[in-house]
């Protein structure tokens, strides 16, 4: 795949996002340039409203930019429509969200099976069982999200994210809804899985200690990169 040709799995050039509000236009992101190598662990850091989640959404192809270019896994996302971007994501991208985003009508096992079934994996159930056992929830397979604690729900979400063995994982404030002890255990698990699967990790957080576990830090302020180290 082309991401291996130049070593970059994600790149953005002149990336901007402008939205209309009652008071006029608001620039959420302006002229962002960045490149992320395969296997890199990157933390995007900033205060609330700095544009972190918007940047993550654009890099993952969940939204389209007002201006600029985004390339994910060698594909120009800004040239594609929503369906085209979905095809790029399919089987390559994993997500972990602050609010877990488990489907309430499905059990833990069914939630993890879902992306596998969508990708047409033959033995979805066994893979899902294995992953849930790996995150320590082998005994909770038939539990619905509402029967699980916050930490457990986030572990299910991680099992789901790694189910398709993605090339890149986007995590949006994964500990935002958890207490610090639970959060720490969840993060340990996230980084363990990341190592095992050799996944590129793009982590959005305002938590400096969490960011410290990544080797690269991109600081955002008012929609611009102020520091990249």
């Amino acid at each position, binding site marked *: 795949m082309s991401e291996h040709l130049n070593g970059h799995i994600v790149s953005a050039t002149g990336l901007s996002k402008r939205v209309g509000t009652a008071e006029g236009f608001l620039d959420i992101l302006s002229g962002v340039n960045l490149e992320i190598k395969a296997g890199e662990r990157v933390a995007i850091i900033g205060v609330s409203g700095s544009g972190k989640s918007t940047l993550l959404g654009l890099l993952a192809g*969940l939204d389209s930019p007002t201006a600029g270019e985004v390339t994910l896994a060698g594909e120009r996302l800004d040239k594609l429509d*929503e369906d085209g971007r*979905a095809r790029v994501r399919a089987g390559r991208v994993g*997500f972990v*969200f602050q609010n877990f985003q488990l489907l309430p009508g499905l059990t833990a096992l069914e939630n993890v099976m879902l992306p596998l079934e969508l990708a047409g994996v033959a033995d979805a159930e066994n893979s899902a069982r294995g992953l849930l056992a790996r995150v320590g929830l082998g005994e909770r397979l038939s539990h619905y999200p509402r029967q699980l604690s916050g930490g457990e729900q986030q572990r299910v979400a991680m099992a789901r994210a790694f189910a398709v063995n993605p090339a890149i994982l986007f995590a949006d404030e994964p500990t935002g809804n958890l207490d610090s002890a639970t959060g720490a255990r969840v993060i340990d698990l996230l980084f363990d899985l990341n190592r095992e699967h050799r996944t590129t990790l793009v982590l959005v957080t305002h938590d400096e200690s969490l960011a410290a576990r990544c080797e690269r830090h991109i600081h955002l302020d008012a929609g611009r990169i102020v520091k990249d180290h």
Partner: protein
Amino acid sequence: MRGPHHVRLAWRLLARDWRAGELRILAAALVIAVGAVTAIGFFSDRLNRAMTYQSADLLGADLRLTGAEPVPAEWIQSAADHGLRHVETLDFASVVVHGDKLQLASIKAAASGYPLRGTLRTAPALYAAETDTGDIPAPGTAWVEARILQALELAIGARIEIGSAAFTVTRVLTYEPGRGGSFFTMAPRVLMHRNDVAATAVVQPGSRVTYSYLFAGADTDLTRYQEWLKTRLGPHHRLFDVRDGGSSIGRALGRAERYLGLTSLLAVLLAGVAIAMGARRYSERHFDTAAMLRCFGATQRDLVRLFVPQFLLLGLVASAAGCALGWLTQEAVFYLLREVYPLRLPAAGLAPVAFGFFTGLLALAGFALPPLMRLRQVPPLRVIRREMAPLPPAAWLVYGSAAVAILILMWRFTGSLLLTAAVLAGSLAAAAVLAAFAGGLLVLSRRVHRRVGVAWRFGMNNLWRRTRTSIGQILAFGLVLMAMAVIALLRTDLLNTWQTQLPPDTPNHFAFNILPQDVAAMQGFFAQHRIPASDLYPMVRGRLTEINGSPVTQAVTKEEDGNEAIRRELNLTWTDTLPSDNRLVRGTWWNNPLPANPVSVEEKLAKKLGIEPGDELTFSIAGSERRARVASIRSVQWDSFHPNFYMIFPPGALDGLPATYLTSFHLAPEQKPLLTELVRAFPAVTVLEMDQVLAQVRTILAQVTAAVELVLLFVLAAGFAVLFAALSASLDERFHEGALLRTLGAGRRQLRAAHFAEFAVLGALAGVLAAIGTELIAWVLYTRAFELEYSFKWPVWILAPLLGGLLIGLAGYIGTRRVVSQSPLTVLREL
């Protein structure tokens, strides 16, 4: 995603959603819609198979010729020459007597060999198992339908009298080929041997008798014989063959199917609303799933391929269940109608099932697709920003697709685009008026708002907050309650009112087939026993064939062709004085000098046929033609129960023709035993007891209305589906509200009372709407259609709101039970 995975995944997701209870209301609504149309479909399909496409079994022959007189012997000889088998039957009405009990019966006298096609079925005793029976009653014996045994309190082996002859009842008649000839068979059947007719002395010249000739043979022989016969048939002859469709019964059936079908569409429409609401809720609850799937890389097309098969599958399963429900309902309808329509019917075909599936899938496409398609538009960014939702579907798309679905179904029942448009426009106008009424009631209910307790106030607030839904529900339940109230009035009040408004000594018995030589003796009988009786009128049977030289069939529209007065033989009479309950509308009574061959015509028939004074009418009477000129048009008060006639001639005009006499008389209850004496003294006379006829009418009315109510139950069920769908749509909000109120100190009992209040008020308002509608319809029916004095129907004003309030209040109470069963903390954490 690849093909088979979609279907498997769709199936799994559907199973999961089903377990989670997401789709139950939607599926129930679909079952109701399909059940309603297939019940009607099965019902009419079976009747159509039995009636319109008359099979040889139902005709009792391949060809049947009927007439008011015996046919010339050469016709029968010719049938034999054409290689056809033949058998003859005689049908007439007569009173059957056992001890001091009487029952008017429809008697068939059959010759050996009857029936030529199909078989009679009989049972050895009442309620015993029936068997095929190859012969007919031996001379001196009779087979009777169960109703005769019940009415006369007979057992097998008992003796009955018909006219001057006595018969031993040997079997119970359970099925007879050819009975399909008359749709609602009023009088029960007695089957006897053709050779016994003379001994009864019932059949005399001028008596009302139908001679039937049944033929069977090879197709080509039948066709050649039919050709031969056609040139010889007189106006009073009728020829039926197995291909004979489009009979008046077929047309009546077509109309019934159309009306019932349109009623069932009301159920489809309401169910459609519930489906749309259910699909909308389903769609909204799956926004997160759709967003998540988009994140995993699903395209818009993938989503369609995932969600549409789920609905397709649901549609197929629910349609199958709906077809089963429709079939069961139709069985129940025929069970209710078993006395009105005793014929055993052929099983229904597959067409109603196909239409049921078509309806189910069309309703889904029309009502569920627009909200479902929103799932394609869910932005994947919703996983980060939950407030992001797709735009609601355009109003034109939502209403447009629903309207197209309903129009297609409506067109199926009306069979004409014009009628469909008319029905649609009429329904829309009626719905608009009723919705305005419902809205008005809602506004009025606000007036009492401040005078009720806090729970009721809170409940009623909920109604006003969701004005549109509330109006829709008041409308739906109001319509159902109204239909039921009107039916209840028809069944009980209308007949009672009519009966009580008749003068006390209105004749309650008719006697006909009185022989000319018996007239004086009969008058003597009435005088001797002080029985008030009308005059005796002579009666000659004849058929109106031409008006001013043009055949009558050209003067009537297709709809009116079914009118018995035109199709069948008319009773013609003569008298010199205008009967007391007749009034001249136009022209003059017999003037001196009389115009040549005058006749006086009844007003309504004249209007229907466009007959004016001075027109020349041609009648076919006893095989010869008679011309007469219209001298006057009369109005007739038919419910006076005096003998009345469409055509009156002056004395002498019908001399030389076979005539019998007709009269009516009033018998007080204590004089009833005289009836047996009368029948024994005049064996040829046929007596019709109006109280028995009325009892029969009541039974038929009760059974037919029960069948219609069964269809209405679908509409009611669809109304409940809308109620529960609306409830389900507002359930999250109610959970939230309930939890908040409880944290503020509201008790569970108060909340439950508020929920009951909300739905009870909704039901009561629907009841008031129903009462308004019922009052209006009843007024039109009583004063316009039946010309009765009208009285205010106050019980409806009490019962409809009370029943509506209780029924819907209870349903709402049950539907919202869960709202207070969970702890406020759980609810607030989950939301």
